[in-house]
């Protein structure tokens, strides 16, 4: 494969960003929207060609003896600090980046199309498409990064575009504060990631040039991932921390992923990010950007495996987050918030799956890299059905003009397309055969049971909760009791226009069949194909749990009944805590405002205000005082100036002369 397509894949969205961003104000909505959609369609086609060439062409550079290879289609030097500290910009093609190309361009295209209908009447339509193009560019650059530094640059760029899109409705104070919150929290996490990157690259670049790692760039993924043992060796004995240096570095890098992927305790930004336009939530905060953390772990997988403690850390964080987010999602009223917490929970699921993977054969385990494959599989299927759910929620909001399920109810009669597609999305996320979520979830649970029965059981419970809260939302929105306002209102809720319905139908179709993709043949941790087979006990358990949870939700919510309220009144404290997301925001507010601002910053502010400002003010005051005193000398009379000048000259001459005598 030449380098034309890879370069075009990066250049096209960036050019679109420039064109729409600079020339957008002069364009009509129609032109801007058409341009954006066409460019993204072309982009999707190019990404499909690249991915299909990689997976199915059988070329020797892509698949060698049945093992899929990592290929750098191009890799040019951008900054050279030292001989080993070189920052490149390139295009890395391997199973996960090829898969991500497909996911990003597909969802991005769907969202572009959908936004045409959804954002039709919003001011700043052209700006919106420009930001979408910027996001697509940054996300593509992130997944094809050949080295840590390129990844970090694009990592920050997706953060910026996410910030811009969350704060798209910049006249709403809540949107502005949500965008700031998202940016600050993820930047805070990225600080740790940067430290981790620096620690890692420092030790790698300081190994002797004739050693096993000699001659390679300290940042390059292929080098790092091909020789994890040598990387570990290069850090051994370097400090008193010995081998744990690498563990620390990998955990610090993972903290960056925690920020982007909204893992506990850095999850607080994602629910608020729902203030952005709903298609943006579908693209960025459900399908692509938030899984960057998972992608990060997958990208560094060999290094994480060489230090198993970091994998354990990932597993624990993921497991706690998954459960927490699932519980909170059961007690939310805003449908976008429910979906946001469901996203957090599902991403945590992938994290646990990755954490449960091994990179070498283990006794008694038929396939040790199952967690990796399953996590990636779930990333793929989740992107599709979660984007579907978000876009469906967008259609609901478009029809009802509220995010609140209390304003909905009984909508199935009014919006049949949305109803069917939403139901498919719910079935997929709940893990019901034959929808895509079932297959990926089954593989993930199998991997977790392989690692330890506890993780498997715990995550099965989370899967049950997932099914419950999704169907709770589904029933409350589409069944329950019809909102009486619909009858009286002259503006009845109805299905969205075709630009919005078409993506829903396409994504629903994908969610129905994606499970049958032989994913194991395509994406595995070492490139060797693996034949997926359903593990009957695991599948049966998870299916039973899901069906039970759906049954419970049906019993509770299909028709209006007092039971949910009664249950809520039975455990008021629990409901309140879950509804307030277990007070995480309050804890953060307490820490930042009461502790950091009040105690630490007050002293600093005092110092700044009185010592630094005081010194400056004092200088200004002294100057001012002097100038007021002497400004009378500047009378504006030229003769007076001459007089003073001459008197001065005479005095100087006299002094000089006296001194010379």
């Amino acid at each position, binding site marked *: 494969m030449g380098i034309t397509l890879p370069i075009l894949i990066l250049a096209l969205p960036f050019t679109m960003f420039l064109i729409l961003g600079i020339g957008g104000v002069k364009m009509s909505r129609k032109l801007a929207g058409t341009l954006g959609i066409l460019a993204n369609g072309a982009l999707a086609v190019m990404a499909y060609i690249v991915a299909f060439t990689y997976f199915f062409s059988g070329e020797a550079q892509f698949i060698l003896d049945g093992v899929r290879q990592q290929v750098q289609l191009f890799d040019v030097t951008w900054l050279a600090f030292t001989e080993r500290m070189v920052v490149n910009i390139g295009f890395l093609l391997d199973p996960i980046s090829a898969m991500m190309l497909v996911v990003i361009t597909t969802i991005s295209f769907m969202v572009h199309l959908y936004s045409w209908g959804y954002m039709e009447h919003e001011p700043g339509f052209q700006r919106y498409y420009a930001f979408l193009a910027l996001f697509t560019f940054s996300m593509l650059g992130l997944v094809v990064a050949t080295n840590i530094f390129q990844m970090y640059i694009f990592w920050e760029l997706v953060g910026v575009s996410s910030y811009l899109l969350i704060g798209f409705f910049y006249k709403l104070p809540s949107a502005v504060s949500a965008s700031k919150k998202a940016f600050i929290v993820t930047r805070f996490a990225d600080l740790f990631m940067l430290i981790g990157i620096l620690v890692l690259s420092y030790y790698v670049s300081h190994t002797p040039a004739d050693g096993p790692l000699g001659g390679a760039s300290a940042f390059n993924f292929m080098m790092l991932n091909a020789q994890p043992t040598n990387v570990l060796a290069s850090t051994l004995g370097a400090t008193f921390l010995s081998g744990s240096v690498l563990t620390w570095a990998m955990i610090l890098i993972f903290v960056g992923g925690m920020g982007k992927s909204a893992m506990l305790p850095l999850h607080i930004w994602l629910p608020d990010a729902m203030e952005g336009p709903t298609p943006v939530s579908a693209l960025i905060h459900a399908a692509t950007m938030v899984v960057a953390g998972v992608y990060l772990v997958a990208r560094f997988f060999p290094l994480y495996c060489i230090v198993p403690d970091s994998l354990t850390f990932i597993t624990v964080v993921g497991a706690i987050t998954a459960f927490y987010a699932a519980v909170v999602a059961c007690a939310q009223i805003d449908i976008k918030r429910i979906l946001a917490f469901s996203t957090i929970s599902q991403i945590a699921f992938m994290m646990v799956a990755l954490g449960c993977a091994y990179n070498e054969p283990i006794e008694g385990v038929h396939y040790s890299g199952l967690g990796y494959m399953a996590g990636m599989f779930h990333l793929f299927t989740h992107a599709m059905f979660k984007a579907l759910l978000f876009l469906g929620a967008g259609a609901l909001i478009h029809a009802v003009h509220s995010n609140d399920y209390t304003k909905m109810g009984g909508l199935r009669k009014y919006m049949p397309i949305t109803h069917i597609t939403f139901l498919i999305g719910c079935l997929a996320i709940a893990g019901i055969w034959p929808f895509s979520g079932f297959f990926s979830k089954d593989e993930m649970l199998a991997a977790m049971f392989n690692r330890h029965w506890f993780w498997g059981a715990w995550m099965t419970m989370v899967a049950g909760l997932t099914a419950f809260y999704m169907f709770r939302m589904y029933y409350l929105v589409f069944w329950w009791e019809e909102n009486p306002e619909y009858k009286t209102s002259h503006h009845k809720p109805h299905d969205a226009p075709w630009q919005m319905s078409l993506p829903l139908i396409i994504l629903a179709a994908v969610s129905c069949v994606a499970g049958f993709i032989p994913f194991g043949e395509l994406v595995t941790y070492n490139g060797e194909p693996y034949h997926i087979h359903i593990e009957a006990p695991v599948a049966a358990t998870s299916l039973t749990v899901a069906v039970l949870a759906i049954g419970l939700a049906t019993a509770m919510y299909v028709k209006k009944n007092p039971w949910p309220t009664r249950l809520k009144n039975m455990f008021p404290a629990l409901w309140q805590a879950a509804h307030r997301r277990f007070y995480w925001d309050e804890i953060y507010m307490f820490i930042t405002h009461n502790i950091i601002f009040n105690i630490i910053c007050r002293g600093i502010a005092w110092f700044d205000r009185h010592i630094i400002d005081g010194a400056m003010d004092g200088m200004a005051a002294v100057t001012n005082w002097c100038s007021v005193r002497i400004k009378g000398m*500047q*009378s*504006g*009379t*030229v*003769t007076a100036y*001459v*007089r003073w000048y*001459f008197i001065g000259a005479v005095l100087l001459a006299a002094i000089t002369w006296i001194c010379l005598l």
Partner: protein
Amino acid sequence: MDLTILWYIVPSVIMFCAGVYGFCTRKNMIALLISLELMLNSADLNFIVFNRFLFPGTMDGMVFTLFAIAIAAAETAVAIAIIINIYREIGNTDITSVKQMKF
């Protein structure tokens, strides 16, 4: 009786101090300019005198006097242009009424 350097310096000093007096006391801008010319002229005379009596072999003083005359002419022309402009603006050439540079 010899005509030494001091003989020529005395009228130069008188000329210069007359210029200073004029510059300090007069109010008419053209009169100020005339006083200025007196001072410049005395400086020119000094250049020549020093050149002649101290360094008779060279011609530096003379050359610089020539330059000074050229510059004095230029300066006078510009100054008179400014004075005429001011006269057009405020109707007189009194230096005390031009006080915009104050503070």
